[in-house]
């Protein structure tokens, strides 16, 4: 390790027990790094229960701005006896192991190649606090204090963070500050500090923000004009609607009447949630739901209805590790096939793949437009990593001149001018037809929405010709969608390589880093980041203009690769896969390693 490499370039892992208040303490560390102008990427690795099981919290600090997960722990803060044996193993040679030295470490836990830093956390807590709950809570803050001394976290930054956190509850600030100081003092009194691996203030962050993807989706839904949210709780999507609720309460309560310019219903299950979304959209209100894999499975029948009856629908799927209940608190990108073809019969759905909180915000708002424009379900596929972890992101922007695109809706005036309204008449020859909201006009514009075959005037029919015509029009609409969905992002277009990487969603972070790593070894790689399905012409061109395509994804079955082959008719033999599906976010090392073995 060169000295340069030790500053602002390491991974700290906190090993705790859940339910002990550790997540917020650990977040404090990440936020402090961020405030010091350095890139920090926190990952909360939590169990699927509420209290008492091992939980980890990684913070990768990166001067170069790499935001992906990295394996190999430089500093392990280990306060969980349950997992300690394994935690010790995961420290890199030369790394540090900070532990609660109230009790001695067993012999077996001693490694020669790492450094041990004992802090008698429990002992200090028992001495300083009398309430057992405070003892547990401040243990976490004390180790943050220890890290502050060891790694040069600026004290002012921590103090300021407490001030912000406890604004309005000022009496809570002092005890927290005290706990930090206890930790710092102990280190200063007992250890050489700071360590070689440490922080140094930089100015790398600019106007960036630190936020989780689910909050960004919720906010995007408020900005995008969603008025009806229906949902059923499920990890890791719950906080999407919670965020929507929070921002809606903040921005959407009529100051005069105190009434809500939004409606949120916790449905009895996911079938009901999507049913409500379809009902609301049918009736002209922008509406969305958020769920995860099991919920999407349950929504299959309704998704087919929305496709066939042509009802705008926005479904945010925050993916977790499947199949079935799988690993509900681990990440994956494995609902792609299901989402693309959900429901029986010939169905296809528009998919959108955000990679960052900013894209969560933008694409949520954009998808509300797109759903109404195309009158079809839009399924946004994010994942646990993006949704529940904080990410450094470009700030959100909004153009106050932006108008919602409500799609082809006829109002009373329009109907007045028309002779006969045909709900499924392809007037514009783009497969997208005109609709009316219920209640628009006393005698014109009513129609009957159904999941059964119907003619252009929405009249029930079992006529083969009418059925085929309609199905062909839906196919034409699919082609129209290609022009409207978010375009992919292209990398390194100039010095074209023979190899093209394809990735999407949270793979972005690791993929970009891996390309830098390969570039250092003089392997130039072109790349495209997909942002939507169906694929537009750029994707098609990218695939056809490279000899080898490597699709990087976080699932077992190479689901995106299948979509590409299916929809673009490209030759599978040139399309390779790099996969990680163990529930942890993919890393650049994994990509490079698998690439070298391709």
């Amino acid at each position, binding site marked *: 390790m060169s000295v340069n490499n030790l500053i602002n370039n390491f991974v700290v892992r906190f090993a705790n027990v859940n339910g002990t208040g550790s997540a917020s303490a650990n977040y404090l560390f990440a936020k402090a790094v961020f405030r010091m102008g350095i890139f920090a990427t926190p990952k909360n690795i939590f169990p699927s229960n509420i209290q008492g099981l091992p939980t980890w919290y990684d913070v990768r600090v990166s001067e170069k701005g790499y935001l992906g997960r990295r394996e190999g722990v430089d500093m392990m803060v280990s306060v969980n006896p349950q997992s300690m044996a394994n935690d010790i193993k995961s420290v890199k040679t030369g790394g540090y192991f900070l532990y609660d030295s109230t009790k001695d470490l067993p012999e077996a836990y001693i490694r020669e190649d790492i450094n041990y830093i004992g802090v008698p956390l429990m002992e200090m807590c028992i001495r300083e606090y009398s309430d057992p709950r405070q003892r547990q809570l401040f243990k976490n803050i004390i180790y943050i204090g220890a890290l502050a001394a060891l790694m040069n976290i600026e004290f002012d930054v921590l103090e300021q963070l407490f001030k912000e956190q406890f604004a309005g509850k000022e009496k809570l600030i002092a005890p927290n500050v005290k706990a930090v100081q206890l930790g710092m003092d102990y280190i200063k009194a007992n250890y050489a500090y700071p360590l070689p691996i440490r922080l140094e203030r930089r100015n790398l962050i600019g106007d960036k923000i630190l936020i989780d993807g689910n909050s960004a989706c919720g906010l995007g839904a408020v900005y995008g004009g969603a008025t009806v949210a229906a949902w059923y709780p499920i990890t890791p999507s719950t906080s999407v609607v919670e965020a929507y609720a929070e921002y809606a309460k903040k921005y959407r309560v009529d100051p005069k009447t105190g009434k809500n310019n939004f409606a949120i219903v916790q449905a009895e299950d996911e079938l009901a949630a999507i049913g409500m979304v379809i009902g609301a959209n049918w009736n002209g209100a922008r509406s969305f739901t958020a769920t995860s894999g099991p919920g999407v499975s349950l929504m299959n029948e309704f998704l087919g209805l929305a496709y066939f009856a042509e009802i705008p629908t926005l479904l945010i799927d925050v993916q977790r590790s499947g199949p079935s209940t799988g690993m509900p608190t681990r990440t994956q990108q494995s609902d792609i096939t299901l989402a693309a073809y959900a429901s029986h019969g010939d169905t296809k759905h528009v998919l959108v793949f955000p990679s960052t909180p900013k894209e969560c915000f933008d694409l949520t708002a954009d998808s509300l437009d797109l759903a109404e424009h195309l009158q079809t379900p839009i399924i946004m596929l994010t994942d646990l990593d993006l949704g529940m972890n904080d990410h450094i992101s470009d700030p959100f922007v909004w153009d106050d001149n*932006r108008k919602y695109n409500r799609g082809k809706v006829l109002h009373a005036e329009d109907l007045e001018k028309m002779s006969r309204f045909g709900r499924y008449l392809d007037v514009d020859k783009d497969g997208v037809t005109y609709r009316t909201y219920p209640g628009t006009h006393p005698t014109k514009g009513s129609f009957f929405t159904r999941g059964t075959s119907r003619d252009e005037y929405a009249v029930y029919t079992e006529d083969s010709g009418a059925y085929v015509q309609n199905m062909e029009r839906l196919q034409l609409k699919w082609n129209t969608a290609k022009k409207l969905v978010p375009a992919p992002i292209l990398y390194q277009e100039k010095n074209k390589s023979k190899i093209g990487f394809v990735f999407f969603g949270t793979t972005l972070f690791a993929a970009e880093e891996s390309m830098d790593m390969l570039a250092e070894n003089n392997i130039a790689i072109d790349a495209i980041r997909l942002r939507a399905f169906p694929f537009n012409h750029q994707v098609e061109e990218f695939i056809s203009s490279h000899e080898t395509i490597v699709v990087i994804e976080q699932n077992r079955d190479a689901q995106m690769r299948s979509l590409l082959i299916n929809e673009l008719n490209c030759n599978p033999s040139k399309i390779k896969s790099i996969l990680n599906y163990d529930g942890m976010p993919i890393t650049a090392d994994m990509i490079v390693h698998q690439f070298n073995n391709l």
Partner: protein
Amino acid sequence: MTYIKPKFRHPALPKNDLGYTKTVYEGSLSTLCAGCGHDSISAAIVQSCYELALEPHRIAKLSGIGCSSKTPAYFLSQSHGFNSVHGRMPSVATGASLANKDLIYFGVSGDGDTASIGMGQFVHVVRRNLNMVYIVMNNGCYGLTKGQDSATADEGSKSKAGSVNLFHAIDLPSLALELGATFVAQSFSGDKAQLIPLIKAAINHPGFALINVISPCVTFNNNPGSTKAYDYVREHIEATATVDFIPLQEEISADYAAGSSKNIEMHDGSSLVLNKLATNWNPQDRMSAMNAMQQAKLDGEILTGLIYIEPETTDLHSLIQTSDTPLNTLDESLLCPGAAALEALNEEFR
């Protein structure tokens, strides 16, 4: 196929307060079996809306899947309709209502649609007190899939296929009462004199209004034990083993006074006893309503009329305090917090 509207209209047809004739409230030709109770209920809906002089385009009609769920096509052709998926109409209606509180919502369902696949959504739409009229066209069987028993079929009754129903019948009005429903009524498809006022009352109820309408399926609700049905033609059909021949039947009507009971003969010769609530029945006491329903069950009778009402009730919109303006009419100016707010928010995340 039955014709619920005559083909020719006299120009001087009576008009309602809006100046509309009843024709305006009708729908397309029914494709249900001749004599099907469901058609009578459609006719009652038409009549009620006409008499109340509702603007047809201010009504939305929603349904699930089944013969009963087809009926919204056969009434109110000037209203938007939504024939959704089997058993899930309540959620679609909930979403629709959330989007626009100002329309009148008619939900039409069958006993299969509500009491089997739709049970979960039914329970929860009651619980949310959604402001809608919820009509169950209850024939004790799955008409559209050819006559299997539904969960409301009487214990011991026989299906067309001859199998005896072994299970306790689900009583939707009693269930709704237990769940806190604020308007619970029961009637018979052939009893227009009772049904029309109930529909009107349900429309005017500012919360969830259930009307469970016993609606004979002339085709599949045949009791093979009854002598009348057991004729030559029946044997013929049985022998060919295809449920393919459906003799033309007349609608069953029932006219009887409040406070009395009436034995109604069904197409197959079996019968049921309707018991009309007396005019002095107090429909504002949930406990007596529940007890009366239980008692009727013990007596082998079907209680009809407005069983329970809580006239001052808080519907879903009031509970969650949505704006007075329908949500589907709000635009950017009210919905989008704008760039400045967003920049302030960004600051919170730095």
